[in-house]
């Protein structure tokens, strides 16, 4: 049955209201089971031996003593993970990242692993593995890695996107350029030009639940994996590929997930656990320590960015250029390319150019972190916008409104925008009472805007109606933030029944077709779309059953508010049939009633947001305290406003942490110095005020309810919103994030000495 994804304006009964989430009780009672909460009979404890060097040749690994230790059931190295990846370099990189193949590429890189009967034995076994390393020169800074003198990490990397093609390998995997118009002419026409350089340090998604899984491989090639993940179907495909298993024979069940934010879209311990289990012929449970999570999973890029803006006296920006250098860790990535797409995306600037450099360093392989690459680019561009506004003696918000992108504006990466919400969010910010609140001494206010794409992706959904009229909804998108509630609401809305009669579950990989990850703000958007279509299919079946029951043609049956209604001539005396009544008879009218849908949900909208931040800077310590924060974001259509607000507040808080305190600190030895929550300081409850939110709804024309993804955008504006607030509070422009107390204090001191 073909489905139309066009937006239809309609009045909703359930969608848009606030319902309690179905998984709430399990989570508040401790019953909900996360990655580390499963056990299997005879299970072993798996542990990983990790490189203490940033870059080293692995000359020899001697596992014999570990293998002989009483209680050790398997020991593996890369030799137990043969390379089956063929010509797929991307998969080969994943394999090598999970277990070093002759060379340790970063502090914490996995070198070997053991499975033993308990924690203590496994820890002892690790100590008995003898590894002979030859240390190699290392580089951890993105700018240093680009120098011709830098140690080259992979000699197969020749920079793509550069003419003529380089003859020598380097750490620069690619150069990207995109833009429109003629920036030289644009700058020539400018009355005012602003140029500034920015640096952002590496941060981690910081989910409170470490990676964990329980793997069980049988001698006949079947296997099971219980795992905390943002996408169990993708994990299945990747693990099956790396281990040479058939996809249908590897059953992956997603546990509840204790936070992901992009950091659980890749495998690290999972293939290792499967390999250990295969060798030991017993289930293997692996739980990462917090130290391992920081050192050896997928943090985000650290960056170095130059921005140049030119404008006429009236505020019209005539040219904009950004050069963005992003490190992707020890393997090639596309992070700088992504940054190029987002840098100027909020604005209509006829002459713009973004150049991105993707660089390798001896750090963990970078993974996506909520609107990947956008927060750093926005820090640079939105800070520069405020600097430009100051030069032009314009209000920061007015400069943005003068140059804002609208429907019909050419995006920096090529296509023309459909209906988008950036202007509405800026206008809403301008009108917001927060903008008129009085500021106290040492306080300043900053605004910033940001955007993120939303993606659609492959989705498969099942809707089954029980004989008592209650409904099971099986979806394949992992619930990271409450989407089961929204999806149940959508099903109830379509079917015309009560929310309480729909139970949404996340199915395992044997029960549904492929579902892409919950990332790209796609969970509610895509599974919501599939739920609508599955419900509409079920309604067709319900109508058919009613038609059969009444003995009238199907065309004479319509579905209204949860009932089959006989329309047309002569049927007036037929009483309506409720969903429950039809379901009760289903065994006699043709069997169980269901609806199903596979869809690649394309046409995802874009999420735009504008934030307002008030900060108080202590001139003695350089410490910045957020005293007030407001998020205004376009959600297209908020299915459950409680959970939309939650996404706004959570993303803003991560951005605030990134702006003020969070950073990876590497020593001269290339080792991570702060792999723990004590010294990697994320925001705590006492750091923050209440975070005000305003949900705008500019419908996405490519979704039946107008839904836009909301999960990611709100991490994008905070870095600059905070930076702009600090500039307004102190007169100091901070170009290096995080804007931690020592950095701010140093800048204040420099200002004092200069003035």
């Amino acid at each position: 049955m073909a489905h139309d994804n066009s937006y239809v304006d309609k009045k909703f009964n359930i969608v848009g209201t606030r319902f309690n989430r179905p998984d709430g009780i399990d989570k508040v009672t401790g019953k909900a089971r996360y990655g580390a909460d499963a056990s299997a009979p005879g299970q072993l404890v798996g542990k990983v031996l990790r490189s203490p060097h940033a870059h080293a040749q692995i000359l020899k690994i001697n596992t014999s003593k570990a293998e002989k230790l009483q209680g050790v059931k398997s020991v593996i190295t890369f030799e137990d993970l043969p390379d089956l990846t063929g010509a797929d370099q991307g998969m080969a990189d994943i394999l090598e990242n999970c277990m070093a193949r002759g060379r340790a590429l970063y502090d914490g890189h996995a070198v070997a692993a053991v499975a033993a009967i308990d924690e203590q034995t496994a820890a002892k076994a690790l100590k008995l593995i003898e590894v002979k390393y030859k240390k190699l020169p290392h580089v951890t800074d993105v700018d240093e890695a680009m120098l011709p003198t830098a140690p080259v990490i992979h000699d197969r990397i020749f920079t793509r996107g550069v003419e003529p093609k380089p003859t020598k390998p380097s750490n620069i995997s690619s150069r990207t350029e995109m833009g429109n118009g003629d920036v030289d002419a644009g700058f020539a026409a400018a009355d005012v030009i602003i140029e500034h350089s920015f640096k952002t340090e590496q941060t981690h998604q910081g989910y409170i639940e470490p990676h964990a899984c329980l793997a069980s491989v049988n001698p006949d090639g079947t296997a099971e994996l219980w795992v905390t993940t943002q996408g169990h179907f993708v994990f299945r495909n990747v693990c099956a590929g790396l281990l040479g298993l058939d996809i249908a024979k590897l059953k992956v069940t997603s546990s509840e997930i204790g936070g992901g934010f992009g950091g659980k879209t890749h495998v690290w311990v999972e293939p290792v656990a499967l390999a250990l289990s295969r060798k030991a012929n017993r289930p293997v449970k692996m739980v990462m320590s917090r130290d391992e999570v920081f050192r050896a999973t997928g943090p985000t890029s650290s960056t170095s960015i130059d921005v140049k803006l030119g404008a006429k006296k009236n505020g019209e920006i005539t040219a904009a250029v950004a050069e963005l250098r992003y490190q992707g860790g020890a393997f090639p990535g596309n992070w700088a390319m992504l940054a190029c797409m987002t840098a100027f995306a909020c604005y209509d600037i006829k002459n713009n150019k973004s150049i991105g450099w993707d660089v390798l360093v001896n750090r963990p392989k970078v993974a996506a972190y909520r609107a990947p690459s956008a927060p750093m680019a926005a820090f640079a561009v939105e800070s520069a916008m405020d600097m430009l506004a100051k030069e032009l003696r314009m209000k920061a918000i007015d400069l943005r409104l003068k140059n804002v992108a609208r429907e019909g504006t050419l995006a920096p990466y090529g296509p023309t925008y459909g209906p988008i919400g950036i202007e509405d969010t800026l206008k809403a910010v301008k009108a917001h009472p927060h903008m008129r609140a009085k500021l106290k001494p040492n306080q300043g206010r900053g605004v910033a805007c940001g955007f993120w794409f939303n993606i659609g992706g492959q989705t498969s959904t099942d809707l089954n109606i029980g004989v008592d009229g209650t409904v099971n909804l099986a979806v394949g998108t992992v619930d990271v933030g409450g989407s089961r509630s929204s999806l149940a609401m959508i099903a109830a809305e379509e079917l015309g029944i009560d929310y309480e009669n729909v139970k949404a579950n996340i199915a395992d990989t044997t029960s549904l077709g492929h579902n892409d990850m919950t990332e790209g703000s796609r969970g509610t958007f895509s599974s919501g779309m599939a739920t609508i279509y599955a419900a509409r299919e079920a309604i067709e079946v319900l109508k058919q059953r009613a038609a059969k029951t009444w003995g009238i043609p199907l065309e004479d049956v319509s579905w209204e508010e949860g009932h089959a209604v006989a329309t047309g001539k002569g049927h007036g005396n037929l009483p309506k049939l409720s969903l429950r009544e039809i379901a009760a008879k289903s065994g006699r009218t043709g069997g169980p009633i269901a609806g199903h849908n596979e869809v690649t949900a394309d046409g995802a909208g874009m999420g735009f947001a504008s934030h307002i931040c008030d900060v108080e800077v202590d001139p003695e310590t350089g410490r910045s305290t957020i005293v007030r924060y407001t998020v205004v974001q376009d959600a297209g259509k908020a299915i459950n406003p409680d959970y939309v607000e939650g996404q706004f507040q959570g993303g803003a808080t991560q951005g605030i942490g990134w702006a003020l305190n969070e950073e990876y600190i590497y020593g001269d030895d290339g080792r991570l110095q702060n792999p723990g929550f004590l010294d990697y300081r994320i925001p705590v409850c006492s750091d923050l005020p209440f975070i005000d939110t305003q949900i705008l709804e500019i419908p996405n024309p490519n979704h039946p309810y107008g839904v836009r993804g909301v999960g990611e955008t709100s991490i994008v504006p905070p870095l600059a919103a905070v930076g702009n607030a600090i500039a307004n509070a102190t007169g100091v422009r901070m170009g290096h994030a995080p804007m931690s107390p020592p950095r701010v204090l140093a800048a204040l001191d420099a200002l004092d000495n200069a003035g």
Partner: protein
Amino acid sequence: MSKSTLVSTTVNGDAVEFACPTDESLMTALRDRVGLTGVKEGCGTGDCGACSISLDGRLVCSCIVLGVEAEGRTIETVEGLSQNGVLHPLQQSFIDHAALQCGICTPGFLIAAKALLDRNPNPNESEIRYALAGNLCRCTGYDKIVRAVQATAKDMRKKGRS
């Protein structure tokens, strides 16, 4: 494998015995020996509060208490908050206020919030925020958590409950 010590405690009102090595944390003992997986490990070093329990009425991070230290003492975990299937007001309030997203930090927050309301039934916003500063949440930004605790405190005072 090092020898285990037998430990006798009261957990959520029931007499419980478990055996654990002397270097094992109470968090691991509760999770793996007693089966109470509602106690979560977020960091293992006392920095995140996900493993929060009440030990003889005192809020502690169970990951930095030894299992053997629980000998003869009383332990309360999230599993003991509801009584006979009736949720504690804090648990209901967290659901009603959407004060959880992924939920991994929720057990720890509930124990910490209960510890606060047990000693201070009328906390102001600042007191709530500082009392909960030992519990990390990465999903919510704490906004709805604080509102849920405020609402519960107000309700409990109204009903004369403590």
